[in-house]
């Protein structure tokens, strides 16, 4: 064990899936022509004013409740002032001294069991636009479609001790956002973004070491790699007698290292002050209670229920509940056909495998829970073999056709009729007299050869159990 202890805190920015932006009625739709979803408010035109989107507040409260935060009955929007071309007003409307919610906690499961991570605060803010620098001309463009998309900033306590815990925390937060259906959690597209504060200290020391802030991590894998690299870098520095410098570092995806932003990161003075265009945000406690009562079952609770109700292993329950849509798929399938373990195996194996292979999420898949349940039932009822079922699955997955129909159309029904199979067995044995003799002389491993031939003759439709019975009768 290293004599250094790692300390990690994360800052998450989650784009909220509201229909319209946080301070105007423009659409939040991703994609689209540059500056398509903009208005004078997005452009920071003279004289225009922000009007708060109540839905964004609702989503913020839901998240705060889901991670046990205290909701502040009064919070204040503040201006964060800095100049940048994709920041049209010259300030970002955010929250500073009095955020929406504080003092929360979240349970995570990493390798070492359950652990509680503190949430310092959750506040609301508007996203900035995008600067696009041309690679061919000496010119930059600004796209303000993203300007004003609502963001939740979720700041954790420095409670994580390994990169793995940090990733587990990220996944847990993302899971909750998805369960609440308030963020689509796409790290690549930037709707779920993460910055990390990392430091090390000698084990047993209470004081924190000097931290660095790591940016530009666009996937869970990046986060893991960036943090591992940064921890190693800091340990090397300290062991060489050098000091960690407080700075912002960018993760270089290609090289797998973190690099200092150097001169670019001047000490910013954002000159925060309360935004006079917005009144204090007063949250009615009755509204909070209504939202609390309306909260869905959250990932950790669901995971525990999957273990107890369906007798699934912890690991399977964790995977199934990691995404709400996947867990919903599982439960709908089980409601159709009450074989949770078998359905779970199909999801964990074939379904997730195919989704991964095609780069799809469960919501984008054509197969329905009912179809998966029907497929499992077909196997259980000996209508098809497990091997054929895998072929059928691919058809169902790709085309969304009912498995019964696939089986029927392709004539894949399992042959369990022993008279029909007997003819095939006779034929195979008749065609291979040498092998039959050798088998009878004691070469018992030829058994596989015969079974293989018989299954092949029936295009895989032979019921292996029945084949075995006939074979043992004929060959002894």
């Amino acid at each position: 064990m290293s004599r250094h202890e790692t300390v990690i805190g994360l800052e998450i920015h989650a784009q909220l899936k509201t229909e319209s932006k946080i301070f105007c009625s423009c659409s939040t739709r991703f994609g689209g022509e540059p500056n398509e979803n903009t208005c004078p408010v997005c452009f920071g035109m003279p004289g225009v004013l922000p009007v708060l989107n109540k839905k964004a507040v609702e989503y913020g409260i839901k998240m705060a409740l889901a991670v046990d935060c205290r909701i502040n009955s009064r919070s204040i929007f503040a201006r964060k002032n800095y100049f940048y071309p994709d920041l049209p007003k010259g300030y970002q409307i955010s929250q500073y001294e009095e955020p929406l919610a504080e003092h929360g906690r979240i349970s995570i499961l990493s390798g070492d069991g359950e652990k509680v991570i503190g949430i310092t605060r959750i506040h609301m803010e508007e996203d900035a636009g995008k600067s696009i620098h041309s690679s061919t001309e000496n010119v930059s463009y600004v796209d303000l479609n993203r300007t004003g998309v609502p963001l939740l900033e979720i700041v954790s306590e420095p409670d994580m001790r390994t990169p793995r815990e940090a990733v587990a925390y990220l996944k847990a937060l993302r899971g909750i956002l998805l369960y609440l259906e308030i963020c689509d959690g796409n790290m690549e597209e930037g709707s779920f973004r993460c910055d990390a504060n990392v430091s090390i200290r000698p084990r047993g020391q209470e004081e924190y070491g000097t931290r660095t802030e790591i940016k530009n991590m666009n996937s869970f894998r990046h986060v893991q790699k960036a943090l591992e690299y940064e921890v190693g870098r800091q340990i090397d520095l300290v062991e060489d007698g050098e000091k960690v410098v407080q700075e912002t570092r960018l993760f270089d995806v290609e090289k797998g290292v973190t690099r200092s932003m150097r001169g670019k990161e001047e000490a910013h003075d954002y000159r925060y002050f309360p935004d006079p265009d917005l009144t204090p945000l007063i949250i009615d406690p009755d509204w909070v209670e209504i939202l609390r009562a309306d909260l869905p079952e959250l990932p950790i609770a669901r995971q525990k229920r999957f273990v107890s109700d369906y007798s699934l292993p912890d690991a399977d329950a964790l995977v199934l509940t990691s995404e709400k849509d996947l867990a919903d798929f599982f439960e709908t399938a089980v409601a159709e056909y009450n074989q949770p373990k078998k359905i779970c195996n199909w999801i964990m194996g074939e379904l997730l495998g195919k989704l991964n292979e095609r780069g799809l999420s469960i919501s984008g898949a054509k197969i329905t829970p009912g179809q998966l349940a029907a497929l499992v039932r077909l196997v259980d009822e000996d209508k098809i073999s497990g091997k054929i079922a895998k072929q059928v699955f691919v058809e169902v997955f790709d085309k969304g056709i009912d498995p019964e129909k696939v089986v029927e159309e392709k004539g894949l029904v399992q042959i369990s009729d022993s008279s029909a199979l007997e003819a095939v067995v006779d034929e195979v044995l008749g065609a291979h007299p040498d092998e039959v003799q050798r088998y009878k002389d004691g070469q018992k491993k030829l058994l596989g050869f015969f079974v293989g031939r018989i299954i092949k003759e029936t295009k895989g439709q032979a019921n292996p159990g029945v084949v075995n019975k006939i074979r043992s009768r004929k060959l002894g």
Partner: protein
Amino acid sequence: MKDIINKSLLEISKSLQMRQIKVREVVEACFDRIDQTEPKINALLCMDKESCLSRALEMDKSGPDPDKPLWGVPITVKDVFCTKEFPTTCGSKILENFQPCYEATLVEKLKNAGAVILGKNNMDEFAMGSSTENSAYKNSRNPWNLECVPGGSSGGSAASVAAGQCFASVGTDTGGSIRQPAAFCGITGLKPTYGRVSRFGLVAFGSSLDQAGPMTRTVADSALIMNVISGHDPKDSTSASRPVPDFLAALEKRQDLKGMRIGLPTQYWMEGLSPETLESCRNAVDAARDAGAVIVDVEMPHARFGIAAYYIIAMAEASSNLARYDGVKYGVRDKSSADLQEMYRKTRSRALGEEVQRRIMIGTYVLSAGYYDAYYKKAAQIRRLIQQDYLRVFESCDLVCAPVTPSPAFKIGEIIDDPLQMYLTDIFTTSLNLAGMPGMTIPVGLGRDTGLPVGVQLIAPAFEEALTLQAGQVMENALPGVGTPTGLG
């Protein structure tokens, strides 16, 4: 023409509604008056005679609409309001030729009420100033004495109304910018309660202080404009969802000031008043007493901190509000720059005026790390104390009466090079904006020494504009008033 332009807004509106006069005649009379006076007073930044006249013809054809209280009435607005039909410069080079594609709620309301907007008034750049000398385009002059400033920042509006170019103008008041020019030009100007009139489309200076209001020749005219422009606007989160009374009807309910208690803050009736201002304002108080009011001395212990707190808060907000003028999206851009930082620097250094730059820098300073607590935070605390001063006074008084300015209009160029002295001319007006209370200037008479108009302020509790209007009208009737401007020949 004289017959037409000397009428009050209320009178001309009645004549128009009764078809005793055509819209075209009224609009033509105003443009004639503009042709005659504009070279002398420089009150307008733009106007559109042609489209106003063709609009007037259409209106005459379709006939009056009794549901439109300003039907056919020519007015102007300060160039701080966004308008679809006119450019909106805010008196600044950085917004030269800026043409909004949206309209201020207030302008929409005026148009829906049937008003004919002739043009837009000159102003101090971004409403920062007390003399209109900070306009990037022209110096407006006081119709009473062309060597004098009309006040500011709504100086163009005050000069237009006083000179009879229009029947009303709408200005804005962040620290006195309606009331002070109204006093200097001898007209009525009302700063409503913060939140009474929508700020949507009003180019922001100090967002927590800015409020639009009427500038007219009579109290009743202000009441009518207030009826049109007041009310909640879903596009402005700080606009109040309070019922709007019929201000004009309220005026008929009071012919005297019997039973009304008017407080005189001792802090405002001592320091630095010119003798003629003190004399005129005392005459106003006497008139109120004669009309039945009980006059009492009141204390506003934090008043002396008002001007410092006001400038800190206004400049802090301005430094942030004006950050959007960066040359990136609209307005003027310096094209000679090699990189982004240089473009920002040159654009803003070249296209923003000296006073605006001064305020941005001071505002930036007071919000900076290490200074925020000593300046901005302290100013916000003083603001609350001043609000409490007012609330305490209004426990025992219906209204507060105070001078508007320490002295009548000063000469053009007289104090422009001394910003601190210029700031101090706002000493009696800023506390109201900090407290959010409504206040109105009414002309009292002409100063004994200068012959220039002197005004007095009536201040009411929040959302009690009707009270200031009622008392204002009683005093207007009792006082000699100022008559027509003497500086136009």
